[in-house]
């Protein structure tokens, strides 16, 4: 059965390790923060200038001077710090962030990612995405595998303008977990009950299917 967005986030949360500094993009990635195991020491960075980002504030405690990169009101946890945007992207560019999770419109079998521009449509801008994908040690893409027109977003070559080149390491969709390897998309896990055939049909690029493809496990 295909995962919903929260389940995708829950699966990605399994990638977290103690000591990780994590940057979460807008959309499904943001949901990952809801599924951090209690015993893990993890800190969330928001690229507009906070490390140690906490949950949304209680009603009446919203502070216009305390927002995340999605412009949402947030809180700061004990031990948090504030800094300017150059320092923030220094953390990113200098590979001090251990994990970046972001959405995508397309990912190629070489690990290229396109997520900022659709020619002919309104361009909103890349924000911090190009810095993130060019710099991060470990990039996981969280997305639905098929777009609204029914086309696979896992492609041989991106048709959309690129955000970054050969940078994605892992992709988690409603159907499966894939790693980018030399030969293409390596199928690592299936969503519970999903068949290889369903996954193959939803993958336009080269899919590598090992003999054993375990199902995802959810402890919650």
């Amino acid at each position: 059965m295909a995962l919903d967005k929260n389940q995708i986030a829950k699966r990605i949360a399994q990638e977290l390790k103690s000591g990780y500094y994590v940057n979460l993009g807008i959309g499904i990635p943001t949901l990952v923060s809801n599924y951090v195991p209690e015993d893990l020491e993890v800190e969330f960075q928001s690229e507009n200038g906070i490390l140690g980002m906490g949950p949304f504030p209680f009603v009446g405690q919203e502070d216009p001077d305390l927002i995340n990169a999605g412009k949402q009101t947030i809180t700061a946890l004990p031990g948090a710090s504030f800094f300017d945007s150059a320092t923030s992207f220094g953390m990113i560019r200098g590979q001090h962030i251990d994990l970046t999770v972001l959405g995508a419109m397309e990912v190629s079998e070489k690990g290229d990612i396109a997520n900022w521009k659709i020619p002919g449509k309104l361009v909103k801008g890349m924000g911090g995405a190009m810095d993130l994908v060019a710099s991060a040690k470990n990039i996981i893409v969280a997305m639905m595998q098929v777009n609204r027109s029914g086309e696979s977003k896992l492609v041989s070559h991106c048709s959309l303008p690129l955000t970054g080149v050969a940078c994605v390491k892992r992709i988690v969709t409603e159907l499966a977990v894939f790693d980018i390897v030399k030969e293409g998309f390596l199928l690592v896990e299936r969503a519970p009950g999903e068949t290889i055939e369903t996954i193959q049909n939803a993958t336009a690029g080269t899919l590598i299917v090992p003999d054993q493809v375990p199902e995802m496990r959810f402890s919650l």
Partner: protein
Amino acid sequence: MITKTVRDVTVALQGIQNGMTVMVGGFGLSGIPENAIAELVRLGVKNLTCISNNAGIDDFGLGLLLQKKQINTMIASYVGENALFEQQMISGELKVTLTPQGTLAEKCRAAQMGIPAFYTPAGYGTEVAEGKETREFDGKHYVLETAYKADFALVKAWKGDEAGNLIFRGTSRNFNPLMCGAAQITVAEVEELLPVGALNPNEIHIPGIFVNRIFKGIQFEKRIEQRTVQSK
């Protein structure tokens, strides 16, 4: 001590003219120089090139300048919350240069610090790198980016003193400190303007040398763009 205090925003923006390049601090609506933006609207200066991470919303922030068609060119990383912006861009009235956010921040800092150019990995292999020099260091590819030049930098701080020293608050810091001294004239508006000696020299985010004019803003609406809360 060299004092930087000016009476009000009108004095602070003296010399601003049509066609100038203006850096504007803030991320979204957080930490934007509301008083200076209102004065730009009042002055009606036109054909501005604005360097700012975002372009405000329809009726606040730089959106107020878009309403009056005062901006000719926008240099930003993300401009998605603004229908006016969209119209003017599609109609060709508004030129837009999109820059990765970290590159934008570092280009401001480079101007501030006298670094003419630097290499960054952001945008390599994308259309952002088109026409720019690229280069390999230790097996990784980078793009050469140059410092921004601007006539005015308009920033907003929390506290300041008469020597121009600034302290920012929370995530309203963002691009504000990086634009100080990155333009010919830096104008800082503050919520609290204190006498010299009132700030702890160890806690100052931006030394007064990077600021040319400082004034106490008379209005800070500090509008929230996305009010997100949790229930108790």
